[in-house]
């Protein structure tokens, strides 16, 4: 349902949104699926070796890492944006000291990175807005 909608909105391109939406259930399945299967089999009296139990528990414990990796990707963009804006600020301060105070006025009009952040990329949001307008 969602895939077809996003596909339709983005003209057949799958964006970061789809990646997040698809991968989280995938992580849940990979991390908790084996545990559920192994524990259910144990309850039916089927023996399992220690190695298998250890692997299954390892997957359960790695869920947080995988999730952080998936959602961290969007946060990475914010951090890189803010670093870029910091570097820009430094450059503009240097320019300001060279060319005068008028540049600082322009800079003050720039938007803060944290205010514009969304889980949807800016590009996707704009596309989404345009497509819904035409619809």
């Amino acid at each position, binding site marked *: 349902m969602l895939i077809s*909608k996003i596909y339709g909105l983005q003209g057949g391109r799958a964006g970061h949104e789809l990646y997040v939406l698809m991968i989280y259930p995938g992580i849940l399945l990979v991390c908790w699926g084996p545990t559920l299967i192994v524990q259910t089999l144990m309850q039916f009296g089927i023996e399992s070796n220690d190695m298998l139990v250890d692997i299954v528990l390892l997957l359960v414990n790695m869920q947080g890492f995988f999730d952080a990796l998936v959602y961290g990707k969007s946060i990475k963009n914010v951090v890189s944006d803010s670093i870029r804006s910091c570097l820009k600020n430094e450059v503009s301060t240097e320019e300001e000291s060279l060319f005068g105070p008028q540049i600082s006025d322009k800079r003050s009009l720039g938007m803060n990175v944290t205010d514009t952040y969304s889980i949807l990329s800016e590009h996707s949001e704009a596309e989404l807005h345009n497509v819904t307008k035409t619809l």
Partner: protein
Amino acid sequence: MCLWILSIRIQLKFIPSNKIKSLHVDIFSSFNSTMFTNIPFNIQAEEPYREMVYFPLQLSSLIPVLISAIAITIVILLSLIFKLYRRPFSLMVLAINIAHFLFHYTKLDVLVFPPYSDLHCRVFSIPIIFGLQSAAAWSALFAHAFLIIITNPSSCDTLLPLMIKKYYMPLGVLLPSVSGIMSFFTRHFVYSETKGTCIHLIYADHMDIPFFVYMYSNWISLHWQYCLV
């Protein structure tokens, strides 16, 4: 009569194995057996069981937990530093990570406070079950919110914050809290004298009802997400 009703016995005729002739659905298996001394709920005591160590004490076994904990901490710190929680979607991502934070840091707690009693393990089970269920619930709600935004993009700043307050918070926080508190009474984790840590007991030929109840949220979440996607 009441006790008889509580002791549900399901005959598994569809399983051909001789080993699995009957399956005892023992609702009160996890309650304190001393409360039910005259009723056949503690039949598990004589049955063979398997110990699942959910709180390993060795550092080598805690490496995956440590990796997860570090990754989650970084994400949470960045979310807080850059104030990403102002956006509804980012707030939900933060909620998922806070749930994971509780789950993983409780596991790491054994390094600082090694378990010493049943009560200790039962207290540990509260944040573990809460974290597990809350993360699953929030991820499903994330997918739901995404569907709403896709169908109605203008509702991101108006409808979504309201929905988070009205519906998502009870589903993502309140229900897992109830489950977490319930896990304290159902003795999901017990203290093992031999292993010196908290374990989960799995009995052969017995259905582990609390385990399936706690896991059920994950599968509802998974099913919901796949339905949406």
